[in-house]
């Protein structure tokens, strides 16, 4: 188990837990990132920059700041 912030670009992972405040979890949900979704990390900004990902389950592409990404627990597929 690792966080989205630690996932290397190119890897496909499944979201198993979103930690952090209720506000953040709700925000991620309504923008299209839910528990159980299959996610592919496309790119990762340098110097603790954000993570760019594609949600393979919904087709949504998101950029998540490093702090946010480190609260998303994932499982390698």
């Amino acid at each position, binding site marked *: 188990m690792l966080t989205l912030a630690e996932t290397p670009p190119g890897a496909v992972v499944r979201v198993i837990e979103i930690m952090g405040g209720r506000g*953040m979890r709700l925000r991620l949900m309504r923008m299209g990132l839910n528990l159980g979704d299959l996610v592919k990390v496309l790119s990762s900004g340098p110097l603790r920059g954000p993570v*760019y990902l594609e949600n393979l389950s919904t*087709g*949504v592409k998101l*950029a*998540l*700041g490093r702090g946010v990404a480190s609260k998303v627990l994932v499982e390698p597929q």
Partner: protein
Amino acid sequence: MLRIALVGQPNSGKSTLFNAVSGLKVDVSNFPGTTVKYTRSRVYFLGRHFELVDLPGTYSLEAGEPAESVAVQYLLSGEVDLIINVVDASLLARSLEFTLELAELGLPMVVALNMMDEAERKGLKIDVGKLEEAFGLPFIPTVANRGRGIVQLFSAAFKVYDEGLKPKILRYRRQVEDKVSRLEEAIPEELARPVKASKRFLALRLLQGDPYLTSRVKLSSPELSKLTEKLREMLEAEVGVSAAEAVAGERHHLAMMLFEASTKVVRRPKPSKADLVDKYIMHPVLGYVVLGLVFYGLFTVVFSVGQPLEELLLTPFENLMEYFAALKSGYATLAEGVLLGLAGGVAVVLPYFVPLVFIISLLEDVGYLPRVAFLMDSLMHRLGLHGKSVVSFILGYGCTVPAIMSTRILESPRDRLLTVMLVNFIPCSARTAVILALVAFYLGPQWALFLYLFNLTVIAALSKLLSSKLKAESPGLILEIPSYKLPPPGSLAKKVWLHLREFVFFAWPILILGSLVMVVLELAGLLNLFNLLLEPLTVWVLGLPKEVGVTLILGILRKELTLVMLIQALGTAKVATVLSPLQIMVFTIFITFYVPCISTIMVTARELGWKMASAAAFLSLFIAILLAFAFRTAASFTL
């Protein structure tokens, strides 16, 4: 009159649809949430008159960003007769969650399955009939940017309205439904009627803990408030998460089920060329090279298009003015003033304005700006800002007013405050015209480049300084990266035209009037008085000729005006014969940093209040004097 609201998630194509029926009115772009205030238009279409309202894109009805709460407030104002829910068909799974939430409002509704071409490219086959049956609503496939499906959409909308067709009620898990039905019974008629929303919708919102509704109920009916709390606690004990998440989760599950039942992936998505390019644009190293090239290209194009055009256009004006000057009569002097204002607007500003606005609009529409936010997020946080602030900064190179309005995409008030303050310092197209027409033209482009970099350094330092005074932390970046879109040439031309029209009808009169005022002041012998009053600033601090004094005051109306007036005050368009290179730099630095213009002050006041607007104005004046003086002093030591 029938009032139709266009509602949908960011980038679903609402504004494109709005434009297709309403003509030259609304600003479309490819950044999540750019329509930050709603736009309305009276429309005559398919033989009916109605009012069409384009609401800002929102991911759900739960208000997060200020842009989103605009949409929610409007939908609950009771003014809406019919909803057109615009959906990006290529992101159907997520979009259906919002459709479910909207349907709960219980208003007549139609769904536009927009961007069907993109969905097909992704290999999705959508069974429209299944969706229509499940929701009890018409789903109309459209491709709004090509005008496809729009007639069908509006005929379906009128039919729904005329027949009073309401969406079906889709049920959630029993644990949720139990509480909802008990709340529905307890909700008084007075609460539901004015907002035109169904009791079911209100019950769900109460259960979720909507702050606005909760506080209203607390005052009006304490019993309902108590019941809500009791049921919410019960639900939370049963499902183990907060009620808000439980309801959102239910919606997600239901939407996923409906999505899977109606949509099949019939083949592998064709990789679009844009996706291949995206690899380089979002690359952790190459991305910055691309970014640098884009901005280098931006200014090179603007300068190399603008400069020859400026020379070409200025010559006839100069000849005419010489002719009037030779007449040596009062009327001729007035005519000269008018001509000078016109020359400034047409020959000096327009050549830089049009290419700049064109390129910035292109970057915006293609979908590059959110990608810049991704690339710059880390640096921005280090400076105490937010990745999304970058978007407002880039828009600021076009015009400060929309840039300030675009700060509504920032969730935290702290980030908005800081970004608005700093956007004021970004040289807008008017200031760029001054920089290019004075500094680049007379001292060479490398000095203009120096000025832009100097400007960015100052902004970065200011950001660091101001953010250290603000206690709150900036929230982490959560930003949707939309797919690339090739804007139809028509829409891009429309956008440039909108800016141009604003400039021609709003700025030209001010330029001509300002120029005339100056001539009149001069003829009345008052010009010297103003200049004398400003002498401490202009001559003592900045080391400029005292004639420039009045240009600085009137420059507050429009920044281009300073340029026009400078020419007038100095009595020649060949500025370099009167001002030394150092004076040109000092003058331009001052112009670049001090209060952008009166419209900016107004819009800042509207967004943040008058206190902050005057703070921003004084801050910029202080910084401008400080920097211009510092530059003058530093230069006099080194030269």
